[in-house]
């Protein structure tokens, strides 16, 4: 039994103090996910907080079948959608992060390479971009990505293939 499973079992048994460790475990990656989707960093922090509170609130509806990560990402995705509805969706995270001075420090070529790739990802159609972000930005498996997006596995696979193909095409043009 993994640490995550033990913590989930504890929470199910009524020991809600185990939630602290579970939150600390997932906080950085959920924050990274929300940063891609929230209009700014403070709203991303709010979205992470809301995600964990909702997860706790609806925990009794969750049946553990090894898909806690998908459950959490699904809540995070919905929270970010609500936030975008409320505050608009400039979707600046991907593009602005590339222009952040912090990234100009190591070497211009490296930063340029990162910037190009981020801009190309940002320019992908929304249904492909989300899959690329979940798969490569959040290290979710294809099955987990399919669960989060409520899509068939084959659809996720084909959209990911199309996204990678168009990224390669774009990079060829960039060159």
């Amino acid at each position, binding site marked *: 039994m993994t640490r995550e499973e033990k913590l989930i079992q504890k929470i199910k048994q009524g020991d809600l103090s185990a939630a602290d460790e579970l939150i600390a475990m997932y906080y950085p990656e959920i924050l990274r996910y929300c940063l891609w989707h929230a209009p700014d*960093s403070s709203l991303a922090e709010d979205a992470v*907080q809301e995600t964990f509170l909702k997860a706790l609130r609806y925990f009794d509806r969750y049946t553990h079948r090894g898909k806690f990560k998908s459950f959490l990402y699904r809540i995070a995705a919905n929270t970010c959608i609500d936030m975008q509805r409320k505050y608009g969706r400039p979707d600046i995270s991907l593009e*602005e992060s590339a222009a952040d001075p912090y*990234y100009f420090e190591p070497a211009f070529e490296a930063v340029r390479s990162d910037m190009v*790739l981020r801009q190309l990802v940002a320019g992908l159609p929304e249904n492909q971009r989300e899959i690329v972000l979940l798969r490569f930005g959040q290290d979710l498996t294809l099955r987990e990505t399919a669960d989060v997006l409520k899509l068939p596995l084959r659809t996720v696979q084909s959209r990911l293939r199309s996204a990678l193909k168009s990224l390669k095409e774009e990079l060829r043009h960039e060159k």
Partner: protein
Amino acid sequence: MKNEPLKNNSLYKETDLKQELSRTLHQLPYEAGDPHLQATILLAGKEACRMQTRERISFARFLKKQIPLIGWKLWGIQGVFLAAASRVLSDCSGYLISPPRLARLLFCLSVVVFMTALPLLYRSIRCQMQEIEAASRFSSVKLLLAKLIVIGIGDIFLLGGLLFTATAKTALPADIAVIYLCLPFLLACGGCLFMLGHFPPGRFLAGSTLFCFALLFLFSVPLRQSALLFHPSYQEGRIILCVWLSVFCACQLRYIIKTSSYGELQII
């Protein structure tokens, strides 16, 4: 994972592109702050305390709690109606010896059976409780489902009582009497469920009452067009109609629960 960013010309290989995407997208434009994590844990602790003080009940228990609140009132009304309808059937058994007349009476009684539930379905609007119900732990849809189950239980007993009286006091065969009672009931039920899912609540009572009265008119006035509906030799047609209406009712119920904006419509 590679630490060095790839040059653009090496990005054509798919594996390299995947590694590069992973490396680039893992870079956060923002440092995760520990104070915010601590604040989240603190808030989660408070939420957990709130949750522990809140009593959680299953839908079955919720339904059981609804019976003393709404069930007995409805079942009381339906009991009185059953007694009155049984008396009518007993007293008029001689006059109703003609099958078409008996069929018309059973059709009308069956529609009235459904109409006994209409005030209960309109109760939330009448008492202006929609906003409280919408904000409660159990959604408006689950509350509606509980009401429909209570109504359904009452209606089954009521139709069963009418069937028993009709077969005991008249010469009508049981299989024909069942269809005579089910067909108009399902017709009224289908129409009203459709209105429940599609109409704003303010218009539901007026719409469904009008629909039921239209059915009563159709069944009670001896029109040439409706004569086929009551003719004993068209039993197969009535059975097919009953099956179709049952499917229609199930679809409407599914629509209300899964798709319709019933919950939102309640607070318009």
